């Protein structure tokens, strides 16, 4: 069993699952508490559209993928704020645009489209060293930003208008988090794939949301659930010889279901029992 760890591809897959799990599930806390779940799919489609044009133009797909994500994250906030839309509506608009662009690009690719389609599914077992370094870097940056700007992020998650009214640069923080989400989706896209990203953004954070009333604990729980899902998913996929992505999605969903069952937020407290901040 342990000899599998000697293989480079497996070591890479394990590192990728740690970094991918951490970065996606941490930013997932923002996505879940701000109630913008479709941000994940939208960013994935933006990155996908960019990736396809990268293939078309014969350049590294990551570069246009980053640019598309960057532009999307720059547009979503201002569209929602200027038009006084629900952010989800703005996200939906960008989603449909990116979807259209992606299909356009896909149609322009001659011959078989396997390389493009691998962007949707990702493949955690064919990760390169450069991918790992990039994923490690984005995970590190995410954690650093969360630590450095925790109090501002907390205020924005509580209420954007209140955060603005106390003199916090609320727009920069909010738009910055949107962009960070895009960057995380982009760096993880060709390893974990667009479909998996969505569940890694939502499931661990949603599970953590069920278990705590403390934002710091929610970040820690969500990050742990993300890594755990990826780890177990990888392990089961090796044992049962099934695609890792599918198992990672299932594992994270099971964790969410368990959290829902065990959630103190659904229990009726007994008289006299004081609600603590945990």
């Amino acid at each position, binding site marked *: 069993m342990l000899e599998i760890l000697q293989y480079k591809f497996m070591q890479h897959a394990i590192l990728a699952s740690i970094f991918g799990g951490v970065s996606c599930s941490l930013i997932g806390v923002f996505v879940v508490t701000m*109630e913008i779940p479709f941000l994940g799919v939208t960013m994935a489609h933006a990155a996908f559209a960019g990736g396809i044009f990268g293939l078309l133009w014969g350049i590294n797909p990551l570069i246009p993928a980053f640019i598309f994500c960057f532009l999307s994250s720059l547009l979503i906030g201002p569209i929602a704020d200027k038009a006084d839309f629900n952010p989800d509506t703005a996200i939906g608009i960008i989603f449909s645009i990116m979807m259209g662009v992606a299909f356009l690009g896909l149609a322009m690719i001659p011959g078989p489209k396997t390389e493009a389609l691998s962007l949707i599914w990702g493949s955690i077992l064919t990760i390169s060293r450069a991918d790992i370094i990039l994923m490690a870097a984005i995970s590190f940056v995410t954690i650093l930003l969360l630590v*450095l*700007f925790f*109090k501002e992020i907390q205020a924005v998650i509580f209420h954007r208008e*209140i955060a603005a*009214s*106390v*003199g916090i640069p609320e727009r920069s923080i909010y738009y910055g988090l949107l962009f960070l989400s895009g960057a995380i989706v982009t760096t993880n896209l060709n390893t974990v794939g667009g479909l998996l990203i969505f569940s890694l953004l939502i499931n661990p954070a949603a599970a953590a*949301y069920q278990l705590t009333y403390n934002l710091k604990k929610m970040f820690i729980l969500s990050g742990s659930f993300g890594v755990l899902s990826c780890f177990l998913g990888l392990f089961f996929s090796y044992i049962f010889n099934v695609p890792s992505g599918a198992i990672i999605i299932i594992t994270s969903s099971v964790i969410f279901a368990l959290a829902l069952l065990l959630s103190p937020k659904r229990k009726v407290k007994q008289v006299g029992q004081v609600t603590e*901040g945990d």
Partner: protein
Amino acid sequence: MVPIVDIRNITVSYRENVALRDVSLSVEEGELVAIGGPNGAGKTTLLTAINGLGKLLSGLVRVFGVEVNHRNINQIRKAIGYVPQRLNIDPRMPISVREVVMIGRYGRIGLLRKANGKDRKVADDLIDSVGIAHLADRPIGHLSGGELQKVQIARALAQEPKILLLDEPTSNLDISAQRSIVELIEKIHRQRWLTTFVVMHELTHLPKSCGKMVLMKNAKIIFQGETLKALSENILSEIYDCPVELLKTDDGVVIRALTNVRNTTV
């Protein structure tokens, strides 16, 4: 003396609705200003024009002697406490009452710095003085409307602001809490010489030290001046479009609409 808030000919609209039409108002440091008027008159919009949350179509706002613009707005907001009319909070929000009061400090503390002992003490003292010490560790989404209102007031005061904007601060409170919040507002106004704007429907709760009154209707300021002059049956009848009776008591005034002309269609 330079007025601490100087609003000049501002117009604010939410797309097709004009919420303020060519409104001017100037307030000196240390004044306690009550703002009254019917629903939809533009009271909330007037408050948000002062802290820059509302967007001006024309005109200008000077606060602390400087014109508010997008570059200095964050700096100015740090010195303006704001209690909005209502807040909808998700019951599962993973933030406690104490943390919400601390948010009031965050603007002042600034980026890349941590809250220190003094910040925590200011927050704790305010939690005590608005009477929510027993709720301090509760999730913020688990409060009643009135309890949440007190948290918001503590949060705004935690900024140690120079200007306080209160949008119907007593609207959700029980009668004893109404009284204690009004007394708190007065006390703070007195102790810190804090310029205070308070939107209020129930003029019974008008703090005694309230020297100035602004009455609004249809996106305009109809009356501004001494509170004693504002409290006249003529002016109030015109503002509310119905005959009004004023009952003076030892404690203040009670205003009663006699026949409610506006609501006859309901």
